[in-house]
């Protein structure tokens, strides 16, 4: 269980949010610039909220009153960056293994499984600058999963993938969550994806939770009668 309560002053507005994620999937939704990435960074320990607390299974990761700040490397957070942040001086294999603590059989199995799942078996010796955008995204996802985290943060993890792969991976993520039973926080702009993955939803606008999003019906209707010329 992850409890987040934080305030953080940004350039244009203040993030002021409070939520609890049970051991399931929370989907963060909201327009571009609403503060989604900022919230993930705060949970990962890459930035300090101005005030608030972040608690994971009774362990205080951050508390402004108790002056607690657990540095990122001790938080056991798997964080997939929106812009991947893959290590350009390592090949795909090394990138994926970077966060693994114990190089045991279990890790090897997981590695093989992820390679297959993400269709990146043929890329293991490639360097990052020679991957396509979607390939990078899948490698970044593999890296975050391989660390076997206690909390998983995914910032638009499937945005650069074609719909087939996307659907496949949505199912896989759901399955993995079912096995690991840890809190996932996931950002996406795709309503269908949110629907498919989310157990809880949090709509964000200018740093604050909004009760119900003002979705325009248009986007849902359009899909119905797809027929490509």
């Amino acid at each position: 269980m992850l409890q987040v309560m934080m305030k953080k002053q940004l350039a244009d507005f203040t993030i002021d949010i409070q939520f609890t994620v049970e051991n399931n999937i929370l989907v963060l939704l909201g327009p571009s610039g609403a503060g989604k990435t900022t919230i993930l960074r705060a949970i990962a320990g890459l930035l300090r909220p101005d005030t608030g607390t972040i608690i994971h299974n009774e362990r205080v990761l951050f508390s402004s009153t108790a002056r607690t700040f657990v540095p990122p490397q001790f938080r056991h957070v798997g964080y997939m960056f929106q812009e991947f942040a893959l290590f350009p001086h390592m090949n795909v294999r090394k990138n994926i293994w970077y966060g693994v603590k114990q190089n045991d059989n279990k890790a090897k199995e997981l590695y093989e499984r992820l390679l297959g799942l993400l269709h990146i078996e043929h890329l293991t010796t490639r360097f990052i600058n020679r991957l396509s955008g979607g390939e990078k995204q899948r490698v970044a996802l593999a890296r975050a999963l391989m660390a076997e985290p206690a909390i998983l943060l995914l910032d638009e993890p499937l945005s650069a993938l074609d719909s087939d792969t996307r659907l496949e991976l949505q199912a896989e993520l759901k399955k993995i969550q079912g096995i690991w039973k840890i809190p996932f926080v996931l950002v996406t702009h795709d309503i269908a994806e949110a629907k498919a993955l989310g157990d809880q939803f949090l709509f964000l606008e200018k740093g604050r939770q909004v009760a119900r999003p003002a979705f325009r019906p248009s986007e849902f209707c359009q899909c119905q009668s797809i027929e490509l010329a």
Partner: protein
Amino acid sequence: MEWQPVLLSLKVALSSLIFVFIFGVAAAYSMRSFEFPGKSALEALFALPLVLPPVVTGFVLLVLIGKQGPIGQFLSESLHTQIIFTPYAAVLAATVVAFPLMYHSAKAAFEGVDSNLEDAARTLGSGSWRVFWTITMPLSWSGLVAGLVLSFARALGEFGATIMVAGNIPGKTQTIPLAIYFAAEANDLTLAGAYVLMISGITFFLIFGLNIWSKKRCGKSSVKGVF
């Protein structure tokens, strides 16, 4: 021409390179991470050995490690030894004069490292030490290599400070630059020329080797892709 100065020069330059690398990189990295009053002053101090005539640097070192100097006294009292007029003094001199080159190169190199990648490594469980070795260092490699080349060249060519603290003792503390000086002073220009060729040869060898090596490395991970 004798081989002893060549060997000694290489030994001195390589030993000092180790110190220069450690201190230069450590200093640059700490300066990057910490803000404190007097930081600029310290930085300026780090550039001084470059701007001061080596003889002055040598004189300062002489005063420090001489019999009456604080370091000299410490060494002779606690370890019953002295480094003045020994090859160790030459290593010290080379280290001090080459340090600014490594420091400033490393500093610039570290500034160029994308902190997002360091953050990513941290979320993957790496402490500062591992982040430094596996991310920061490799990513600033070309700048660090430039610093190493410059430092090595400077250490190899060091003369003014060396002759002051290590003396010019043939067979014991005579490095190539000292041998050049010594041959030139004695008007033996052939000998001086031979040593100049020797030291140039070492430089060529170094840079050739480095280029070949870094080409190999780039073949694997070129930042520019192959298209």
